Protein backbone atom coordinates (compact mmCIF):
# COMPACT_ATOMS: atom_id res chain seq x y z
CA UNK A 1 0.00 0.00 0.00
CA UNK A 2 1.44 3.35 -0.99
CA UNK A 3 0.87 6.60 -2.78
CA UNK A 4 -1.92 9.13 -3.06
CA UNK A 5 -5.04 8.83 -5.19
CA UNK A 6 -6.75 12.08 -6.16
CA UNK A 7 -10.34 11.96 -7.40
CA UNK A 8 -10.87 14.71 -9.98
CA UNK A 9 -14.24 16.30 -10.57
CA UNK A 10 -16.07 17.18 -13.73
CA UNK A 11 -19.43 18.81 -14.30
CA UNK A 12 -21.36 19.17 -17.52
CA UNK A 13 -18.33 18.21 -19.57
CA UNK A 14 -15.91 20.58 -17.83
CA UNK A 15 -13.11 19.80 -15.44
CA UNK A 16 -13.80 21.54 -12.12
CA UNK A 17 -11.16 23.91 -10.66
CA UNK A 18 -10.98 21.90 -7.45
CA UNK A 19 -9.36 18.97 -9.30
CA UNK A 20 -5.95 20.61 -9.72
CA UNK A 21 -6.15 22.08 -6.20
CA UNK A 22 -6.44 18.52 -4.91
CA UNK A 23 -3.29 17.62 -6.81
CA UNK A 24 -1.44 20.35 -4.89
CA UNK A 25 -2.87 19.09 -1.61
CA UNK A 26 -1.71 15.58 -2.49
CA UNK A 27 1.77 16.67 -3.52
CA UNK A 28 2.38 18.11 -0.06
CA UNK A 29 2.33 14.60 1.41
CA UNK A 30 3.06 12.45 -1.61
CA UNK A 31 6.62 11.60 -0.61
CA UNK A 32 5.92 10.22 2.87
CA UNK A 33 2.84 8.46 1.49
CA UNK A 34 4.99 6.45 -0.87
CA UNK A 35 5.78 8.84 -3.67
CA UNK A 36 3.29 7.79 -6.31
CA UNK A 37 0.55 10.25 -7.24
CA UNK A 38 -2.39 9.06 -9.32
CA UNK A 39 -5.29 11.22 -10.47
CA UNK A 40 -8.50 9.44 -11.40
CA UNK A 41 -11.35 10.91 -13.39
CA UNK A 42 -14.76 9.26 -13.48
CA UNK A 43 -16.99 10.63 -16.20
CA UNK A 44 -19.12 9.68 -19.19
CA UNK A 45 -16.19 10.75 -21.40
CA UNK A 46 -13.20 10.76 -19.06
CA UNK A 47 -10.50 10.81 -21.79
CA UNK A 48 -11.41 14.42 -22.57
CA UNK A 49 -9.93 15.49 -19.23
CA UNK A 50 -6.92 13.21 -19.01
CA UNK A 51 -4.38 15.59 -20.50
CA UNK A 52 -5.40 18.57 -18.36
CA UNK A 53 -5.02 16.41 -15.26
CA UNK A 54 -1.47 15.44 -16.08
CA UNK A 55 -0.10 18.25 -13.96
CA UNK A 56 3.47 18.53 -12.73
CA UNK A 57 4.03 15.89 -10.09
CA UNK A 58 1.31 13.53 -11.28
CA UNK A 59 2.61 10.07 -12.17
CA UNK A 60 -0.47 8.62 -13.78
CA UNK A 61 -3.97 9.62 -14.83
CA UNK A 62 -6.50 6.81 -14.64
CA UNK A 63 -9.77 7.17 -16.51
CA UNK A 64 -12.95 5.36 -15.51
CA UNK A 65 -15.87 5.52 -17.91
CA UNK A 66 -19.23 6.03 -16.26
CA UNK A 67 -22.32 4.44 -17.82
CA UNK A 68 -24.09 7.81 -17.42
CA UNK A 69 -23.10 11.19 -18.80
CA UNK A 70 -23.29 13.17 -15.57
CA UNK A 71 -21.97 12.63 -12.06
CA UNK A 72 -23.83 9.92 -10.17
CA UNK A 73 -22.92 9.38 -6.54
CA UNK A 74 -23.32 5.59 -6.52
CA UNK A 75 -21.28 5.20 -9.70
CA UNK A 76 -18.58 7.35 -8.12
CA UNK A 77 -18.60 5.21 -4.98
CA UNK A 78 -18.25 1.94 -6.93
CA UNK A 79 -15.53 3.45 -9.14
CA UNK A 80 -13.51 4.80 -6.19
CA UNK A 81 -13.73 1.43 -4.44
CA UNK A 82 -12.46 -0.26 -7.62
CA UNK A 83 -9.63 2.29 -7.85
CA UNK A 84 -8.69 1.54 -4.25
CA UNK A 85 -8.55 -2.17 -5.07
CA UNK A 86 -6.46 -1.53 -8.18
CA UNK A 87 -4.03 1.09 -6.85
CA UNK A 88 -3.88 0.27 -3.14
CA UNK A 89 -3.28 3.92 -2.10
CA UNK A 90 -2.42 5.03 1.42
CA UNK A 91 -4.32 8.29 1.04
CA UNK A 92 -7.33 9.23 -1.09
CA UNK A 93 -8.00 12.93 -1.63
CA UNK A 94 -11.39 14.19 -2.82
CA UNK A 95 -12.98 17.64 -2.75
CA UNK A 96 -15.21 18.79 0.07
CA UNK A 97 -17.73 19.52 -2.65
CA UNK A 98 -21.40 18.73 -3.13
CA UNK A 99 -20.53 15.84 -5.45
CA UNK A 100 -17.89 14.28 -3.22
CA UNK A 101 -20.11 14.68 -0.16
CA UNK A 102 -22.40 12.26 -2.01
CA UNK A 103 -19.84 9.44 -2.23
CA UNK A 104 -16.79 10.13 -0.02
CA UNK A 105 -18.39 9.34 3.35
CA UNK A 106 -20.01 6.24 1.79
CA UNK A 107 -16.65 4.89 0.60
CA UNK A 108 -15.10 5.61 4.01
CA UNK A 109 -17.96 3.86 5.83
CA UNK A 110 -18.10 0.89 3.48
CA UNK A 111 -14.33 0.32 3.55
CA UNK A 112 -13.63 1.28 7.15
CA UNK A 113 -11.23 4.06 6.17
CA UNK A 114 -9.84 6.87 8.25
CA UNK A 115 -11.88 9.89 7.26
CA UNK A 116 -12.16 13.64 7.64
CA UNK A 117 -14.07 16.26 5.68
CA UNK A 118 -13.58 19.97 5.05
CA UNK A 119 -9.85 19.57 5.47
CA UNK A 120 -7.78 22.72 4.90
CA UNK A 121 -4.28 21.36 5.52
CA UNK A 122 -2.64 17.95 5.30
CA UNK A 123 0.59 17.15 7.13
CA UNK A 124 2.36 13.89 7.87
CA UNK A 125 3.47 12.38 11.15
CA UNK A 126 3.79 8.65 10.65
CA UNK A 127 0.53 8.95 8.71
CA UNK A 128 -1.67 11.75 7.45
CA UNK A 129 -2.61 14.54 9.86
CA UNK A 130 -5.59 16.62 8.79
CA UNK A 131 -6.52 20.11 9.97
CA UNK A 132 -10.12 21.29 9.91
CA UNK A 133 -12.48 23.53 11.82
CA UNK A 134 -14.17 22.42 15.02
CA UNK A 135 -17.17 23.72 16.98
CA UNK A 136 -18.62 25.56 14.01
CA UNK A 137 -15.13 26.55 12.88
CA UNK A 138 -14.52 28.57 16.03
CA UNK A 139 -11.50 26.38 16.69
CA UNK A 140 -8.99 24.52 14.55
CA UNK A 141 -8.70 20.76 15.09
CA UNK A 142 -5.82 18.52 14.18
CA UNK A 143 -6.91 14.97 13.44
CA UNK A 144 -5.00 11.73 13.20
CA UNK A 145 -6.19 8.27 12.22
CA UNK A 146 -4.88 5.71 14.66
CA UNK A 147 -5.12 2.15 13.43
CA UNK A 148 -6.05 3.18 9.89
CA UNK A 149 -3.85 2.00 7.09
CA UNK A 150 -5.84 3.97 4.57
CA UNK A 151 -7.38 7.42 4.91
CA UNK A 152 -9.86 9.35 2.75
CA UNK A 153 -9.94 13.11 3.07
CA UNK A 154 -12.38 15.64 1.63
CA UNK A 155 -10.38 18.82 1.05
CA UNK A 156 -12.00 22.25 1.01
CA UNK A 157 -12.21 23.86 -2.41
CA UNK A 158 -10.01 26.95 -2.58
CA UNK A 159 -7.75 25.83 0.27
CA UNK A 160 -4.88 25.00 -2.13
CA UNK A 161 -3.55 26.70 -5.24
CA UNK A 162 -4.16 24.71 -8.42
CA UNK A 163 -1.24 22.61 -9.66
CA UNK A 164 0.32 23.77 -12.90
CA UNK A 165 -0.17 21.71 -16.03
CA UNK A 166 2.36 20.31 -18.43
CA UNK A 167 3.51 17.24 -16.58
CA UNK A 168 4.27 14.02 -18.37
CA UNK A 169 1.83 11.70 -16.67
CA UNK A 170 0.91 8.49 -18.41
CA UNK A 171 -2.77 7.83 -19.04
CA UNK A 172 -4.50 4.51 -18.59
CA UNK A 173 -8.11 3.44 -18.73
CA UNK A 174 -9.41 1.24 -15.92
CA UNK A 175 -12.32 -0.95 -16.87
CA UNK A 176 -14.82 -1.07 -14.01
CA UNK A 177 -18.20 -2.80 -14.21
CA UNK A 178 -20.51 0.09 -13.33
CA UNK A 179 -23.61 -0.86 -15.28
CA UNK A 180 -25.75 -1.67 -12.26
CA UNK A 181 -24.25 0.94 -9.94
CA UNK A 182 -26.61 3.70 -11.08
CA UNK A 183 -29.33 4.32 -8.49
CA UNK A 184 -30.58 7.80 -9.38
CA UNK A 185 -31.91 9.21 -12.63
CA UNK A 186 -30.63 12.56 -13.86
CA UNK A 187 -33.48 14.75 -15.06
CA UNK A 188 -32.04 18.20 -15.67
CA UNK A 189 -29.71 20.97 -14.58
CA UNK A 190 -31.32 24.29 -13.68
CA UNK A 191 -29.57 27.62 -13.20
CA UNK A 192 -30.95 29.57 -10.27
CA UNK A 193 -30.07 32.92 -8.84
CA UNK A 194 -30.10 34.96 -12.02
CA UNK A 195 -31.36 38.41 -11.16
CA UNK A 196 -31.23 42.10 -11.91
CA UNK A 197 -27.97 42.53 -10.04
CA UNK A 198 -24.59 40.89 -10.62
CA UNK A 199 -22.74 41.01 -7.31
CA UNK A 200 -19.66 39.43 -8.89
CA UNK A 201 -19.09 42.68 -10.84
CA UNK A 202 -19.30 45.02 -7.82
CA UNK A 203 -16.13 46.65 -6.44
CA UNK A 204 -17.70 47.35 -3.08
CA UNK A 205 -20.06 44.92 -1.39
CA UNK A 206 -21.95 45.69 1.77
CA UNK A 207 -22.91 42.23 2.92
CA UNK A 208 -25.45 41.41 5.61
CA UNK A 209 -26.16 38.21 7.47
CA UNK A 210 -28.17 36.66 10.24
CA UNK A 211 -27.09 39.44 12.60
CA UNK A 212 -29.58 41.86 11.04
CA UNK A 213 -32.21 39.77 12.83
CA UNK A 214 -35.38 40.78 11.00
CA UNK A 215 -36.71 41.23 7.48
CA UNK A 216 -37.96 44.69 8.48
CA UNK A 217 -34.36 45.80 8.97
CA UNK A 218 -33.39 45.14 5.35
CA UNK A 219 -34.51 48.52 3.92
CA UNK A 220 -32.15 50.23 6.37
CA UNK A 221 -29.20 48.37 4.85
CA UNK A 222 -30.41 48.90 1.30
CA UNK A 223 -30.36 52.62 2.04
CA UNK A 224 -26.96 52.41 3.70
CA UNK A 225 -25.54 50.53 0.70
CA UNK A 226 -26.94 53.21 -1.61
CA UNK A 227 -25.41 55.99 0.45
CA UNK A 228 -22.04 54.28 0.62
CA UNK A 229 -21.99 53.47 -3.09
CA UNK A 230 -21.99 49.76 -2.32
CA UNK A 231 -23.90 46.84 -3.76
CA UNK A 232 -25.88 44.89 -1.17
CA UNK A 233 -25.07 41.21 -0.86
CA UNK A 234 -26.17 38.64 1.70
CA UNK A 235 -25.19 35.40 3.37
CA UNK A 236 -27.21 32.23 3.10
CA UNK A 237 -29.61 32.58 6.06
CA UNK A 238 -31.05 35.74 4.53
CA UNK A 239 -31.87 33.86 1.31
CA UNK A 240 -33.13 30.78 3.18
CA UNK A 241 -35.53 33.00 5.09
CA UNK A 242 -36.79 34.39 1.79
CA UNK A 243 -35.79 37.96 2.65
CA UNK A 244 -33.59 38.52 -0.42
CA UNK A 245 -33.13 36.72 -3.73
CA UNK A 246 -30.50 34.08 -4.34
CA UNK A 247 -28.92 36.46 -6.90
CA UNK A 248 -27.38 38.39 -4.00
CA UNK A 249 -26.04 35.38 -2.10
CA UNK A 250 -22.31 35.13 -1.49
CA UNK A 251 -20.91 31.67 -0.82
CA UNK A 252 -20.39 28.17 -2.08
CA UNK A 253 -23.97 27.75 -3.24
CA UNK A 254 -24.25 31.41 -4.23
CA UNK A 255 -21.67 33.58 -5.95
CA UNK A 256 -17.92 33.83 -5.54
CA UNK A 257 -16.94 37.48 -5.30
CA UNK A 258 -13.64 39.35 -5.37
CA UNK A 259 -14.50 43.02 -4.69
CA UNK A 260 -12.03 45.68 -3.62
CA UNK A 261 -13.90 46.02 -0.33
CA UNK A 262 -16.16 43.49 1.38
CA UNK A 263 -17.89 44.96 4.43
CA UNK A 264 -19.62 42.16 6.35
CA UNK A 265 -22.20 43.16 8.94
CA UNK A 266 -23.58 40.43 11.19
CA UNK A 267 -22.04 37.56 9.22
CA UNK A 268 -20.39 34.96 11.43
CA UNK A 269 -18.61 33.35 8.48
CA UNK A 270 -19.75 29.78 7.91
CA UNK A 271 -17.20 27.86 5.87
CA UNK A 272 -19.43 27.97 2.82
CA UNK A 273 -19.63 31.74 3.08
CA UNK A 274 -15.89 32.21 3.51
CA UNK A 275 -15.34 30.13 0.38
CA UNK A 276 -17.20 32.76 -1.61
CA UNK A 277 -15.57 35.93 -0.31
CA UNK A 278 -12.15 35.30 1.16
CA UNK A 279 -10.38 36.53 -1.98
CA UNK A 280 -11.75 40.06 -1.58
CA UNK A 281 -8.91 42.64 -1.50
CA UNK A 282 -10.03 44.14 1.81
CA UNK A 283 -12.42 42.44 4.19
CA UNK A 284 -13.96 44.37 7.07
CA UNK A 285 -16.14 42.45 9.52
CA UNK A 286 -18.44 43.70 12.26
CA UNK A 287 -19.85 41.06 14.57
CA UNK A 288 -20.75 40.80 18.24
CA UNK A 289 -19.06 37.41 18.62
CA UNK A 290 -15.28 37.76 18.99
CA UNK A 291 -14.84 34.09 18.02
CA UNK A 292 -16.80 34.41 14.77
CA UNK A 293 -14.84 32.61 12.01
CA UNK A 294 -15.13 35.63 9.73
CA UNK A 295 -12.43 37.32 11.81
CA UNK A 296 -9.99 34.65 10.62
CA UNK A 297 -10.15 36.02 7.07
CA UNK A 298 -10.97 39.68 7.78
CA UNK A 299 -8.28 42.34 7.40
CA UNK A 300 -10.14 44.65 9.75
CA UNK A 301 -12.58 43.59 12.43
CA UNK A 302 -14.75 45.15 15.10
CA UNK A 303 -16.55 43.30 17.86
CA UNK A 304 -19.58 45.49 18.40
CA UNK A 305 -23.24 46.08 17.60
CA UNK A 306 -23.74 46.31 13.85
CA UNK A 307 -26.83 48.52 14.10
CA UNK A 308 -24.96 51.18 16.03
CA UNK A 309 -22.11 51.05 13.53
CA UNK A 310 -24.56 51.20 10.62
CA UNK A 311 -26.22 54.32 12.09
CA UNK A 312 -22.87 55.99 12.52
CA UNK A 313 -21.65 54.93 9.06
CA UNK A 314 -24.50 56.86 7.43
CA UNK A 315 -22.97 60.08 8.71
CA UNK A 316 -19.80 59.51 6.72
CA UNK A 317 -21.27 59.09 3.24
Amino acid at each position, binding site marked *: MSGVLVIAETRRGELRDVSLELVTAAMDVNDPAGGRLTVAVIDGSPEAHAQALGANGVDEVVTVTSPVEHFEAHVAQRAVEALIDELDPTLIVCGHTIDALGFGP*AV*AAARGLGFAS*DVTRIAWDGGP*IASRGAYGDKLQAELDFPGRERVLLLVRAGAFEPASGGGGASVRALDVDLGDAVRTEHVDFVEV*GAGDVDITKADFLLSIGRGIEDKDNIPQFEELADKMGATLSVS*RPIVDAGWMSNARQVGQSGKTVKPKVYLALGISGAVQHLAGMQKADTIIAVNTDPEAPIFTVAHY*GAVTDLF*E*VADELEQHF
Partner: protein
Amino acid sequence: MKVVVPVKQVANLDDEFELDDDGTGVDPDSVEWELNEWDTFSVEAALQLAEAGDGTEVVVVSVGDEEADEGLLACLAKGADRAVRIWDDGLEGADALAVARVLAAAVERESPDLVLCGVQSSDAVAGATGVALAAHLGLPRVAVVNKLDYDAASSTATVERELEGGLVEVLRVRCPALLTIQTGINEPRYATLRAIKQARDKPLEVVELAALALDGAAVAQAAGARTRALRHHEKGEGAEMIDGSAADVAGRIAEIVKERMSG
Protein backbone atom coordinates in the same frame (compact mmCIF):
# COMPACT_ATOMS: atom_id res chain seq x y z
CA MET B 1 -45.24 5.07 5.07
CA LYS B 2 -42.54 5.63 7.64
CA VAL B 3 -40.02 8.47 7.65
CA VAL B 4 -37.03 8.32 9.99
CA VAL B 5 -35.26 11.57 10.78
CA PRO B 6 -31.89 11.38 12.55
CA VAL B 7 -31.32 14.57 14.55
CA LYS B 8 -28.51 15.92 16.67
CA GLN B 9 -28.18 18.22 19.63
CA VAL B 10 -25.26 20.48 18.72
CA ALA B 11 -22.73 22.27 20.88
CA ASN B 12 -22.82 26.03 20.70
CA LEU B 13 -19.81 27.65 22.34
CA ASP B 14 -20.25 30.68 24.56
CA ASP B 15 -18.36 33.79 23.50
CA GLU B 16 -15.88 33.00 26.26
CA PHE B 17 -14.82 29.38 26.41
CA GLU B 18 -11.93 27.31 27.70
CA LEU B 19 -10.21 24.31 26.18
CA ASP B 20 -10.14 21.25 28.43
CA ASP B 21 -6.95 20.13 30.14
CA ASP B 22 -5.61 17.84 27.42
CA GLY B 23 -6.44 20.34 24.68
CA THR B 24 -8.65 18.03 22.65
CA GLY B 25 -12.05 19.32 23.74
CA VAL B 26 -13.74 22.31 25.32
CA ASP B 27 -14.86 22.82 28.90
CA PRO B 28 -18.45 21.49 29.01
CA ASP B 29 -19.48 24.47 31.14
CA SER B 30 -18.92 26.77 28.19
CA VAL B 31 -21.24 24.84 25.88
CA GLU B 32 -24.92 25.39 25.25
CA TRP B 33 -26.90 22.69 23.48
CA GLU B 34 -29.50 23.18 20.79
CA LEU B 35 -31.15 21.22 18.00
CA ASN B 36 -29.01 21.34 14.87
CA GLU B 37 -30.34 23.97 12.50
CA TRP B 38 -30.19 21.63 9.46
CA ASP B 39 -32.28 19.09 11.36
CA THR B 40 -35.09 21.56 11.84
CA PHE B 41 -35.45 21.51 8.04
CA SER B 42 -35.31 17.70 7.72
CA VAL B 43 -37.90 17.34 10.49
CA GLU B 44 -40.13 19.88 8.76
CA ALA B 45 -39.78 18.01 5.45
CA ALA B 46 -40.87 14.81 7.18
CA LEU B 47 -43.82 16.50 8.88
CA GLN B 48 -44.97 17.93 5.56
CA LEU B 49 -44.87 14.46 4.02
CA ALA B 50 -46.88 13.14 6.94
CA GLU B 51 -49.47 15.86 6.45
CA ALA B 52 -49.70 15.08 2.74
CA GLY B 53 -50.15 11.33 3.11
CA ASP B 54 -52.43 9.17 5.22
CA GLY B 55 -50.91 7.19 8.02
CA THR B 56 -47.33 8.40 7.64
CA GLU B 57 -45.31 7.88 10.78
CA VAL B 58 -42.40 10.21 11.60
CA VAL B 59 -39.73 8.81 13.92
CA VAL B 60 -36.87 10.99 15.15
CA VAL B 61 -33.65 9.29 16.22
CA SER B 62 -30.69 10.76 18.03
CA VAL B 63 -27.35 9.53 19.31
CA GLY B 64 -26.70 11.48 22.47
CA ASP B 65 -26.89 11.75 26.22
CA GLU B 66 -29.81 13.28 28.16
CA GLU B 67 -29.05 16.66 26.60
CA ALA B 68 -30.50 15.24 23.39
CA ASP B 69 -33.93 14.73 24.98
CA GLU B 70 -34.67 18.42 24.72
CA GLY B 71 -34.17 18.36 20.95
CA LEU B 72 -36.20 15.17 20.58
CA LEU B 73 -39.03 16.65 22.65
CA ALA B 74 -39.00 19.71 20.39
CA CYS B 75 -39.42 17.40 17.38
CA LEU B 76 -42.25 15.52 19.12
CA ALA B 77 -43.90 18.83 19.95
CA LYS B 78 -43.80 19.84 16.31
CA GLY B 79 -45.57 16.62 15.33
CA ALA B 80 -43.17 13.69 15.18
CA ASP B 81 -44.83 10.50 16.39
CA ARG B 82 -42.02 8.80 18.26
CA ALA B 83 -38.47 9.44 19.36
CA VAL B 84 -35.55 7.07 19.90
CA ARG B 85 -32.37 8.05 21.69
CA ILE B 86 -29.30 5.82 21.71
CA TRP B 87 -26.57 6.34 24.25
CA ASP B 88 -23.55 4.80 25.86
CA ASP B 89 -20.82 6.75 27.62
CA GLY B 90 -18.36 5.26 25.15
CA LEU B 91 -20.00 7.37 22.46
CA GLU B 92 -18.69 10.59 24.00
CA GLY B 93 -16.80 12.41 21.26
CA ALA B 94 -17.85 9.92 18.55
CA ASP B 95 -17.23 11.24 15.05
CA ALA B 96 -19.55 11.18 12.04
CA LEU B 97 -18.66 7.65 10.96
CA ALA B 98 -19.08 6.20 14.44
CA VAL B 99 -22.44 7.92 14.81
CA ALA B 100 -23.49 6.66 11.36
CA ARG B 101 -22.69 3.09 12.45
CA VAL B 102 -24.86 3.43 15.55
CA LEU B 103 -27.67 5.12 13.64
CA ALA B 104 -27.58 2.33 11.06
CA ALA B 105 -28.35 -0.27 13.69
CA ALA B 106 -31.19 1.84 15.06
CA VAL B 107 -32.69 2.83 11.70
CA GLU B 108 -32.53 -0.73 10.39
CA ARG B 109 -35.02 -1.77 13.09
CA GLU B 110 -37.49 0.74 11.70
CA SER B 111 -37.40 -0.30 8.01
CA PRO B 112 -38.29 3.23 6.87
CA ASP B 113 -39.42 4.25 3.40
CA LEU B 114 -37.44 7.44 3.62
CA VAL B 115 -34.60 8.67 5.83
CA LEU B 116 -34.14 12.44 6.00
CA CYS B 117 -30.93 13.79 7.56
CA GLY B 118 -29.67 17.35 7.81
CA VAL B 119 -26.82 17.97 5.35
CA GLN B 120 -24.46 18.71 8.23
CA SER B 121 -24.39 19.71 11.87
CA SER B 122 -23.48 23.26 12.80
CA ASP B 123 -20.78 22.14 15.27
CA ALA B 124 -18.88 19.33 13.51
CA VAL B 125 -19.75 20.47 9.95
CA ALA B 126 -18.67 17.07 8.62
CA GLY B 127 -21.51 16.64 6.12
CA ALA B 128 -20.85 12.93 6.33
CA THR B 129 -23.24 11.23 8.74
CA GLY B 130 -26.20 10.89 6.38
CA VAL B 131 -24.29 9.51 3.40
CA ALA B 132 -22.28 7.14 5.60
CA LEU B 133 -25.56 5.96 7.14
CA ALA B 134 -26.99 5.32 3.67
CA ALA B 135 -23.93 3.22 2.83
CA HIS B 136 -24.44 1.07 5.94
CA LEU B 137 -28.13 0.66 5.16
CA GLY B 138 -27.51 -0.06 1.48
CA LEU B 139 -29.93 2.69 0.54
CA PRO B 140 -29.63 4.97 -2.48
CA ARG B 141 -29.02 8.51 -1.35
CA VAL B 142 -29.01 12.07 -2.59
CA ALA B 143 -26.89 14.64 -0.75
CA VAL B 144 -27.74 18.33 -0.32
CA VAL B 145 -31.40 18.33 -1.35
CA ASN B 146 -33.15 21.68 -1.47
CA LYS B 147 -36.44 20.57 -3.03
CA LEU B 148 -38.39 17.37 -2.49
CA ASP B 149 -41.49 16.01 -4.24
CA TYR B 150 -42.51 12.56 -3.11
CA ASP B 151 -44.86 10.50 -5.27
CA ALA B 152 -46.53 7.93 -3.06
CA ALA B 153 -48.00 5.96 -5.97
CA SER B 154 -44.60 5.12 -7.40
CA SER B 155 -42.57 5.47 -4.15
CA THR B 156 -40.34 7.85 -6.05
CA ALA B 157 -38.80 11.11 -4.89
CA THR B 158 -38.02 13.83 -7.40
CA VAL B 159 -35.49 16.12 -5.78
CA GLU B 160 -33.28 19.06 -6.49
CA ARG B 161 -29.68 18.75 -5.43
CA GLU B 162 -28.06 22.10 -4.71
CA LEU B 163 -24.73 22.40 -6.53
CA GLU B 164 -22.16 25.15 -6.25
CA GLY B 165 -22.56 28.58 -7.77
CA GLY B 166 -26.31 28.76 -8.26
CA LEU B 167 -26.82 25.50 -10.15
CA VAL B 168 -29.18 22.70 -9.17
CA GLU B 169 -29.60 19.19 -10.52
CA VAL B 170 -33.04 17.67 -10.73
CA LEU B 171 -33.03 13.92 -10.25
CA ARG B 172 -35.25 11.02 -9.33
CA VAL B 173 -34.64 8.29 -6.82
CA ARG B 174 -36.70 5.22 -5.93
CA CYS B 175 -37.50 4.81 -2.24
CA PRO B 176 -36.56 3.55 0.25
CA ALA B 177 -33.83 6.15 0.02
CA LEU B 178 -31.91 8.57 2.18
CA LEU B 179 -31.80 12.29 1.47
CA THR B 180 -29.67 14.89 3.20
CA ILE B 181 -31.67 18.08 3.51
CA GLN B 182 -30.32 21.59 2.98
CA THR B 183 -31.49 24.69 4.83
CA GLY B 184 -34.05 26.81 3.02
CA ILE B 185 -35.97 23.83 1.60
CA ASN B 186 -38.96 24.83 3.72
CA GLU B 187 -39.91 27.02 6.65
CA PRO B 188 -39.53 25.03 9.88
CA ARG B 189 -42.52 25.39 12.16
CA TYR B 190 -42.44 26.36 15.79
CA ALA B 191 -44.14 24.23 18.42
CA THR B 192 -46.78 25.79 20.62
CA LEU B 193 -46.26 25.81 24.37
CA ARG B 194 -49.21 23.47 24.68
CA ALA B 195 -47.63 21.06 22.19
CA ILE B 196 -44.34 21.18 24.06
CA LYS B 197 -46.15 20.10 27.24
CA GLN B 198 -48.03 17.35 25.41
CA ALA B 199 -44.84 16.07 23.79
CA ARG B 200 -43.84 14.56 27.13
CA ASP B 201 -46.68 12.06 26.70
CA LYS B 202 -45.32 10.82 23.37
CA PRO B 203 -42.99 7.78 23.26
CA LEU B 204 -39.31 8.55 23.77
CA GLU B 205 -37.44 5.27 23.86
CA VAL B 206 -33.90 5.18 25.24
CA VAL B 207 -31.87 2.38 23.69
CA GLU B 208 -28.53 1.03 24.80
CA LEU B 209 -25.88 -0.16 22.39
CA ALA B 210 -26.28 -3.76 23.47
CA ALA B 211 -29.92 -3.69 22.38
CA LEU B 212 -28.64 -2.85 18.89
CA ALA B 213 -26.13 -5.70 19.01
CA LEU B 214 -23.32 -3.14 19.18
CA ASP B 215 -20.65 -2.50 21.74
CA GLY B 216 -18.12 0.24 22.37
CA ALA B 217 -15.43 -1.61 20.47
CA ALA B 218 -17.56 -1.90 17.34
CA VAL B 219 -18.30 1.80 17.48
CA ALA B 220 -14.69 2.75 18.05
CA GLN B 221 -13.82 0.57 15.09
CA ALA B 222 -16.17 2.61 12.91
CA ALA B 223 -14.71 5.99 13.92
CA GLY B 224 -12.93 7.81 11.11
CA ALA B 225 -10.58 10.06 13.04
CA ARG B 226 -9.33 11.19 16.42
CA THR B 227 -8.87 14.79 17.50
CA ARG B 228 -5.32 15.05 18.74
CA ALA B 229 -5.24 18.82 19.27
CA LEU B 230 -7.55 21.81 19.30
CA ARG B 231 -6.31 25.34 18.96
CA HIS B 232 -7.54 28.82 18.28
CA HIS B 233 -7.43 29.99 14.68
CA GLU B 234 -4.52 32.07 13.65
CA LYS B 235 -6.07 35.40 12.84
CA GLY B 236 -5.68 36.59 9.27
CA GLU B 237 -2.34 38.08 8.39
CA GLY B 238 -2.35 41.81 8.96
CA ALA B 239 -5.72 41.65 10.69
CA GLU B 240 -6.41 44.72 12.74
CA MET B 241 -9.15 44.91 15.33
CA ILE B 242 -10.86 48.30 15.55
CA ASP B 243 -11.68 49.22 19.13
CA GLY B 244 -13.68 52.06 20.61
CA SER B 245 -17.26 53.31 20.41
CA ALA B 246 -19.59 52.62 17.50
CA ALA B 247 -18.74 56.12 16.25
CA ASP B 248 -15.03 55.35 16.39
CA VAL B 249 -15.52 52.05 14.56
CA ALA B 250 -17.71 53.62 11.88
CA GLY B 251 -15.22 56.46 11.43
CA ARG B 252 -12.36 54.06 10.88
CA ILE B 253 -14.39 51.83 8.54
CA ALA B 254 -15.41 54.88 6.49
CA GLU B 255 -11.76 55.89 6.26
CA ILE B 256 -10.69 52.44 5.06
CA VAL B 257 -13.51 52.19 2.54
CA LYS B 258 -12.82 55.62 1.06
CA GLU B 259 -9.11 54.96 0.85
CA ARG B 260 -9.51 51.54 -0.81
CA MET B 261 -12.24 52.61 -3.21
CA SER B 262 -10.27 55.63 -4.43
CA GLY B 263 -7.17 53.51 -4.99
